[in-house]
């Protein structure tokens, strides 16, 4: 195994992703790239200011930082597993990225490790964004001495947890290869990760309660999860870092040993629904959506949650249905072959209507049993209607994200950039409108107008992409 090959492949993946992300859709224009970067920086700064002001108000001058940090430390496993599940699902779709390296003189092991390194670097960028605000504001309030606490309570456990999950993932992949189920890992891996989440969730809740009790009663809380924090407190930072370095080396060696030697292509589609519907355009668009493995994963998650809620007597409006609506991000790109395989063209709005209607068909199919469970639990129909409105809006917005930031070849970074920008804008609008104390009817009208704008920009975006393909306008 050559380290140089791994580094070269790692750079190849980043070059590909950056050129794909910055070369297509909205980000192809320099003006939009600058605007996007500006929004992200402003968003991050706003996030920091909000975190700082909230913490100063509620925690400043109190001794609550210690237990809050302990709770953050204990829940690291849960949060990292959620992030890892998301990353896994996104990167499973990026299988085509790996194919880039097939004609290069690299072993499968080098390829897998370069990809793991690439994935870790993406995760690091996201982690800085998510945990950065909390870390910066805590250090600003408590002084530079608190940096040590943040490092041993958050950053080191996050890194170790991520590495451990990577070993577990590669071992799982090896197991699936042995059982000849590796082609179905797109479906099986998220299921197993979700199982892990359902085990970790009650444990994290229980430990949080124990920490709170210990703090009130003045007892010391001890847990193997706080290993770095305890080492730092009892022996000093140097030992915590040393143990972290040793553990990381051992885990990375484990990753190298566990990484599969053979590459098994992923099954991306599963045959469902009758062939006859392929005759109609809407039918073909519906097939794209129903057959992709990520839809299947989302549907199973929704049903599993509905069943869990039913058994645990959790009475909530069926907001879990929103999970289905995020498929919209891939709806435009996944259906691209349907628009490109023939010289016969249809207008952008007809294609857009097919994209949205196919998602509505999927949503209604899943919503019928889930809503039936909610109604049987005693939830009013009036409580379910806002869910439908929210989901419809979500379908329109995620479709727009998929058009403005097309995740070609399943590259996950485009989805992340699009989602971050969309979340910042949507939160700004929602919070801003909240200040106006609008009547529900007026709010509904405002949100309807915003959704109409989303539809309009989606159709205009599709039309523009088509004109770019025909070289009528520059990209």
């Amino acid at each position, binding site marked *: 195994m050559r380290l140089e090959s791994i580094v070269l492949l790692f750079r190849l993946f980043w070059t590909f992703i950056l050129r794909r992300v910055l070369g297509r859709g909205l980000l192809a224009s320099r003006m939009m790239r600058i605007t996007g970067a500006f929004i992200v920086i402003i968003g991050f700064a706003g996030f920091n200011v909000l975190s700082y002001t909230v913490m100063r108000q509620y925690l400043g001058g109190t001794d609550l930082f210690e237990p809050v940090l302990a709770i953050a430390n204990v829940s690291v496993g849960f949060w990292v597993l959620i992030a890892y599940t998301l990353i896994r699902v996104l990167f499973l779709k990026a299988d085509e990225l790996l194919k880039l390296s097939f004609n290069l003189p690299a072993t499968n092991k080098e390829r897998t490790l370069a990809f793991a390194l690439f994935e870790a670097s993406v995760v690091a960028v996201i982690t800085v964004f998510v945990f950065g605000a909390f870390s910066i504001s805590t250090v600003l309030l408590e002084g530079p001495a608190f940096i040590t606490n943040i490092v041993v309570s958050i950053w080191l456990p996050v890194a170790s947890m991520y590495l451990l999950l990577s070993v577990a993932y590669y071992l799982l992949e090896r197991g699936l290869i042995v059982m000849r189920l590796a082609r179905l890992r797109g479906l099986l891996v998220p299921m197993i990760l979700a199982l892990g989440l359902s085990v970790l969730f009650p444990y994290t809740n229980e430990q949080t309660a124990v920490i709170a009790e210990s703090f009130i009663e003045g007892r010391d809380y001890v847990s193997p999860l706080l290993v770095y924090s305890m080492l730092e407190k009892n022996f000093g930072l140097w030992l915590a870092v040393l143990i972290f370095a040793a553990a990381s080396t051992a885990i990375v060696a484990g990753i190298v040993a566990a990484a599969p030697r053979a590459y098994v292509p992923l*099954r*991306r*589609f599963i045959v469902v629904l009758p062939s006859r519907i*392929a005759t109609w355009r809407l039918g073909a668009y519906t097939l794209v959506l129903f057959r992709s493995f990520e839809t299947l994963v989302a549907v199973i998650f929704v049903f599993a949650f509905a069943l869990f809620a039913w058994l645990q007597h959790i009475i909530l409006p069926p907001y879990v249905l929103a999970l289905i609506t995020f498929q919209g991000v891939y709806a435009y790109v996944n259906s691209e072959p349907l628009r490109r395989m023939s*010289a016969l063209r249809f207008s952008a709005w007809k294609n857009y209507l097919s994209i949205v209607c196919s998602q509505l068909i999927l949503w209604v199919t899943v919503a019928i049993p889930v809503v039936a469970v909610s109604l049987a639990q005693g939830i009013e129909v009036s409580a379910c209607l806002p869910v439908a409105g929210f989901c419809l809006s979500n379908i329109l917005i995620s479709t727009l994200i998929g058009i403005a930031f097309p995740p070609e070849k399943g590259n996950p970074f485009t989805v992340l950039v699009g989602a971050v920008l969309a979340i910042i804008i949507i939160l700004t609008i929602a919070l801003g409108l909240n200040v106006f104390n609008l009547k529900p009817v007026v709010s509904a009208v405002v949100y309807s107008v915003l959704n109409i704008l989303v539809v309009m920009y989606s159709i205009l975006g599709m039309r523009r992409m088509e004109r770019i393909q025909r070289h009528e306008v520059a990209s």
Partner: protein
Amino acid sequence: MPLTVDHVDYAYTLQKQVLHDVSLSISENTILGLIGPNGSGKSTLIKVILDLLQTQGGSIRIDGQLNSTRSAKVSSIYLSSNDYLPEFLTGEEYLRFMHGLYAEPLDLEVLENHFARYSMSGRHRDLIEDYSHGMRKKLQLIAAFMLKRRLTVIDETLNGVDIESVGIFEKDVRDLANDGRSVLLCSHDFGVLENVADDVAVLIQGALVFQGDLDSVNRDYGNLSALASEYIQSMGAE
């Protein structure tokens, strides 16, 4: 006339003129072989003909209609050089979708017969995701032979297809052309072109430097390869 290309120019950018005043035509019952070195503008010409790129100068008519009209599009079918196919569909569903686009009924018996002839028996219910490169190309060819348009445009589709299937293709494309239809066949495989083409056109650096029937090519130059070499050398010398 199934295809008339009249003084067509095309440029991707102001500095990059790709097609220069190209004119050609294909009569009924004719297979026209289009040849030329890489980067000579063959694929661009095909895309302009099929209105996948907007015409910038000149005019194109398919079956007597301007190429941008719906009737021209329904009269033609394009088999692209890449295998950009909907992998979420099965072979049968792909053909159903194509038939749906052209508003033609799908004959399952004919479909199964074509799959058997192209050594893909029983694979029409498999996802295209599971097809090899060659199988995808054969699927595209089957679509063309089932839909039988007035003009069939084949751009390098035979790359990766096995020898036995190429033989079947030669027979099918000849039958298609004998049935009052025309084919524009772009290929680097001179052997196939010599077996099936009636006419040949040579495109070099975006200019159509030759169009004539294959018999005269064989008479004057010996074979297609000699014709291509001579024009490439003479253009290179200029």
